[in-house]
């Protein structure tokens, strides 16, 4: 029996909407910390029913087989980014658990950690290491990355002199060359002018169809249809559909209130 690459069980994430809820007085915090071992589970739950808070995700469960691509779709605010952030371990779930078998690469944002005073080349090393490559891997792929970014002429100048377009292209180039068994990809990453955007999308497609396990989120149903083997639809933090892609897209369109139409033939 092949082992599941990614399994998520009853995942939930609670957020306090009011910032102040996190910033209790220092004395309350001290009491809370020392009373923790003595507190019963029931007491912990009660804070989650507080009015100015939301469950960004609740009771999410699904599995992804190795080598399959799962599309995650939903309206803005449905919990897609939260789910990806949890799986990328940037934030911790409030309840539930998940298991990921394999190295995880997250392409959710680009340019993390870029320092304006360092050159493009140095930032490649910096950013590459931050997103999970070893320095050796980064050096091995350095030429490819530079070529993909189309910034070769300026690669040794400090990035503070780059245009925003160059910056994003370089950032994406590093991220695009991250290779991991499990990839979490947000198509929002495709940046730049039309030509570069197509390049980005093609690279994302290549990553997804390379036999890796991928969690892919996008607002472009075309991409979803082309790349994904199965589909998860989120609505207000709940999973309303897990399974077939076409059915998932239909459910999503229903949620959005888009009437289903045949494609225009002009």
């Amino acid at each position, binding site marked *: 029996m092949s082992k599941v690459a990614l399994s998520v069980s009853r995942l939930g994430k609670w957020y306090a909407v009011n910032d102040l809820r996190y910033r209790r007085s*220092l004395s309350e915090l001290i009491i809370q910390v020392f009373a923790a071992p003595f507190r019963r589970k029931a007491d912990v739950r009660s804070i989650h029913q507080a009015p100015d808070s939301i469950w960004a995700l609740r009771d999410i469960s699904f599995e992804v087989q190795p080598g399959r691509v799962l599309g995650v779709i939903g309206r803005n605010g449905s919990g897609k980014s939260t789910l990806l952030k949890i799986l990328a371990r*940037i934030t911790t779930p409030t309840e539930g658990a998940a298991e*990921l078998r394999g190295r995880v690469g997250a392409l959710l944002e680009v340019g993390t*950690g870029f320092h304006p005073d360092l050159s493009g080349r140095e930032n490649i090393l*910096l950013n590459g290491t931050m997103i999970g490559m070893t320095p050796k891997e980064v050096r091995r792929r350095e030429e490819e990355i530079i070529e993909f970014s189309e910034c070769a002429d300026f690669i040794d100048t400090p990035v503070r002199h780059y245009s925003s377009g160059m910056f994003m292209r370089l950032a994406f180039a590093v991220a695009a060359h991250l290779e991991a068994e499990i990839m979490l990809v947000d198509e929002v990453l495709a940046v730049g002018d039309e030509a570069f955007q197509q390049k980005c999308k093609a690279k994302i497609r290549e990553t997804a169809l390379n036999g890796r396990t991928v969690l892919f989120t996008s607002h472009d149903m075309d991409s979803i249809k082309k790349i994904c083997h199965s589909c998860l639809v989120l609505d207000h933090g709940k999973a309303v559909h897990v399974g077939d892609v076409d059915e998932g897209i239909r459910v999503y369109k229903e949620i959005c209130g888009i009437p289903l139409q045949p494609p225009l033939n002009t």
Partner: protein
Amino acid sequence: MSQTFLIRAIGQQPLLNFGELWAFRHLFYILVWRALRVRYQQTVIGVAWALLQPILYTFVFTVIFGLLMSIPTNGQPYPVFVMSGLAVWLFVAQAFNQASASMFNNAHLINRIYFPRIILILVAIAVALADFLLAFAVLVVLMIWYGIVPTMGALYFLPMMLLAVMTILGLSLWLSALYVPYRDVGHLLPFMTTIWMFLSPVIYPSTLLPPKYQFLYALNPIVVVIDTSRWAFAGGPPPQGWMVAVSCGVAAFLCVTGYWFFRRQEATFADVV
């Protein structure tokens, strides 16, 4: 390469995970490299700035506390006396401030990538150690100038620096975790540093203190570290054994409790910072 990651809910994170720290060692090196590289990137004098600070401090302190106020130093020349304390103190002050603010200063990293957050504290301490080496070089020059030979205390200096690192680590684990939700910690840091400096024998010898307060004094581990530095490099007396023991106890307590608190809070940093 097969690794399995288990994501568990808040409050169920494992406490110790050294394997993970080792796996992220590259990130540690890169962040230290970034800090040092950026520091000296655009300044013309570059590295000289790191030397200027201890030199200027020594000069000013020698004039004010050595000459004008004539603080007794048990026969050691004041510049060497103060520099042997300053080299340690400047390291402690820098490491303490940078490490305690490291979560806050690196919020943009915490929000976007996963890594054991303690690495940020270790990076701050490592960068301060790099500057310490330069200050130490100044001390060596002064020792040569005054013809002072290091004593047996030099053997204990490295373990004492380790004690200093543990103290800073313990304190900054507490403070950096508290800084995330409570911004006032940022205002407290410079103030705490100044008070701490006066509570340490930087400008005056620890022998100045009446014996009945020595236990309280020993609760500050930096006291025995500086005393050892003076013993090794400035011809001063060695610190008392029981004071060293008390200091080690304090440092261990700070580290253990600090690490526990930090790990508990770590899961929510990305949500709050």
